[in-house]
């Protein structure tokens, strides 16, 4: 069970400080005004790092049995990939209205 391997409060505090630092980096990068696509890529990478750490430590995924990870995460990613690229809804984006 997760509670047998709980990290210490010092670890949680360290992660919390790390999250705040990543948010600081996100703001600093934004105000350097990179190209929109570059900014999106950088912000997404940083957000995925934050989310991964949050999932593993705050949500204790790291301390659960591996089968939970292999049940939830790959299937969720598969659905997202199919939804964004192959299933019918993905093609609706080609027809979205971009201007008024």
């Amino acid at each position, binding site marked *: 069970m997760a509670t047998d391997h709980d990290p210490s409060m010092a670890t*949680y505090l360290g992660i919390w400080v790390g999250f705040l630092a990543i948010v600081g980096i996100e703001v600093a990068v934004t105000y350097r005004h990179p190209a929109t696509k570059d900014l999106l890529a950088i912000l997404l990478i940083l957000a995925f790092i934050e989310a991964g750490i949050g999932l593993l430590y*705050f949500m204790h995924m790291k301390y659960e049995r591996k089968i939970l990870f292999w049940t939830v995460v790959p299937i969720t990613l598969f659905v997202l990939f199919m939804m964004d690229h192959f299933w019918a809804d993905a093609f609706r984006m080609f027809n979205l209205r*971009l201007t008024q």
Partner: protein
Amino acid sequence: MSDSELTIGAGHGALLEASPYGLQSKKLAMWLFIASDAVTFTAALVVYGFLRIGSPDWPRPFEWPSIVNGLVMTFVLLSSSLTMLVAVRAAKASQKSKAIRWLGFTMLLGVIFAALHLREWFHMFGEGWGLHKNPMGGPLDFGAAFFSITGLHLLHVISGVVALLVITIGYKTNWLDDNHVETTSLYWHFVDVVWMFVFPLMYLMNAR
């Protein structure tokens, strides 16, 4: 808790076979809910991303004070995850009053987050923004994307505060136990994780 204790505690069906996940059914159900909710948020954010990149005249309404407001909201929500962790640890250690106190702090931070969010919204309404209103000219989709995605997240925060209130009352009156507190904490941390995407994509991507 050992597997055998978990199995016995989970009801007659589970006596036949232990859960391969080593989890109580409510916690597994919460994980599955979180996975489905993650798909919902991702779908909305991906559509927004396509619109944002595909619109050269996309508005950038957020000046520095709005970004600071977003930073304070981020600080509040991240801190609420920390107070939730303290509450779960206290509940697991059977420190009931401490757990209830920290659950209270978590709810308070959730309410502060919602209040800051609504303040930002009303400020934008005052400037002429709306679901299909864009006072800066250009695509009307900004309002639809911003208010629907942040609104969906805000709804999750408010739902989380209500859920925490119910869990706290149940835990205090011995109707619920520490496992309920832990399961609800998963939802609260998930709401925090979603904000890690919403803030940079909705605020920073639209900063002047």
